[in-house]
């Protein structure tokens, strides 16, 4: 009996040690803008997930492609069916590392560089961006804006709608991480 408790205790202790330096955001937002003379297109998801390892500076962002909302519903359908092929590639993901880690224990406003790989539409590309980190009373929030070229990710735009969709789109990500409870 005592042994059981002891083992359980140790395994939980192990768990908490493992998780202590990782903070998670379950409702991070990812949006993108394509702007042309003909049409502005915006897709927005507020159900993206992100995790940040405070010790190593490693960061991950994951968004379900079908969670992007558009002003025009038909556009949303086309986005999933014709461009992202969300059935085959359900998620878009960024995996990377903060190069110049900030001191996460101190409140303040930091701009750091993040480097990593972006996986969209089954194509993995390296990606680098500046990230704005705000630490306020221990709550960490991150924001970043970068541009990606649609053609880089093997997403083909048919000539008939070529004028409606920009060659490169601006991507905005932001996350507020839940503070550690343990």
């Amino acid at each position, binding site marked *: 009996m005592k042994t059981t408790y002891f083992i359980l205790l140790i395994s939980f202790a192990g768990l908490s040690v493992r998780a202590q330096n990782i903070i998670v955001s379950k409702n991070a937002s990812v949006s993108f803008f394509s702007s042309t003379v003909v049409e502005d297109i915006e897709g927005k998801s507020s159900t993206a997930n992100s995790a*940040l*390892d405070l010790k190593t500076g490693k960061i991950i962002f994951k968004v*379900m492609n079908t969670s992007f909302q558009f002003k*025009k519903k038909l556009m949303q359908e086309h986005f999933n069916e014709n461009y992202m092929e969300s059935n085959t590639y359900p998620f878009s993901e960024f995996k990377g590392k903060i190069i110049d880690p900030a001191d996460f224990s101190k409140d303040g406003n930091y701009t750091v560089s993040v480097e990593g790989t972006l996986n969209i539409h089954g194509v993995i590309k390296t990606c680098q961006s500046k990230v704005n980190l705000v630490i306020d009373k221990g709550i960490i929030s991150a924001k970043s804006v970068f541009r990606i070229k649609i053609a880089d990710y093997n997403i083909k735009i048919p000539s008939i709608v070529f004028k*409606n969709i920009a060659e490169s789109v601006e991507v905005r990500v932001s996350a507020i991480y839940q503070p550690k409870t343990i």
Partner: protein
Amino acid sequence: MRLTPLYLKILLLSLFATITLSSFGQDDLEKALSTVPSPGHQKVSATFKSTKLINGHTNETIYKNELEFKVDHRFGDIAGSQGGIKQFFGLDNSTDIRIGFEYGISDRLSIGLARAKGATNVQQLYEGSIKYRLLEQTTDDYIPVALTLFGSNTIAAVHASEDPASAAAYHSFKDRMNYVTQLIIARKFTEGISFTLTPSYIHRNLTAFRDQNDLFALGAGARAKISKRMAVVVDYFIPFRNSADKAYLEGVNGTKFYNPLGVGLEMETGGHIFHLNFTNAAAIEEMQFIPQTTSSWLKGQYRWGFSISRRFSFNKK
């Protein structure tokens, strides 16, 4: 209480696992994300690209605040006694033309208004329709099929016929009304293959002498994508006719009834959808092509048809 060795093993193993896991940073992050619950039952989108296959409806409706403008056209017989080079393979004639609007009140409910020429002597048709998505298929098969209800009332504006046996021998305004009710059962099997099954009920307030006022029919349809933006579409309807009345009508007119079959090519270009199709049905409205198709594929009485649709969005944000 004594610990069984197996229990102990599992505990030790999980302890070991937690320790080993903590040494892999990135996997750890992924693990942290995997604890986030996935968002419930996802709806299957775009079972079909269009609200209609060729003759029959699909389960699709128009999204909220969007308007679809659609033109359908059916030419004359390509071959047979009415076709051939003299009629330029049917292109000199048009058996039916339909111009329609459909508007999405919500993502589930749309209403339509259309005008069609009408292929029989019941002509100058005005159709008001309503389409409602009862159920939507989910990707995890929690709901395996989509169900959509379609209802329409088609009013014939043609001048009343003097012939009392005619389907257009109207006495009152009520006689001009024709109702169609359909339950469209649809399933998207793979990204490229979708099917429909459509039990239908048609009620015509006035018909030709001994024709049926009430008729049940079963429709079936399919779409198979051949590229990202192109698909082959097929649909077929079987009307369940009263055999005595069918024999009588066929005897009087010297024509036979056939089941409407359509095959076509669907092309989608972001907002526009084009259909090129071939069908033996001369009419476009349900209340006509289901009970009144008297042309046969085997006699060369099939025609070229097309439809063009364009969607407009009135969403402001």
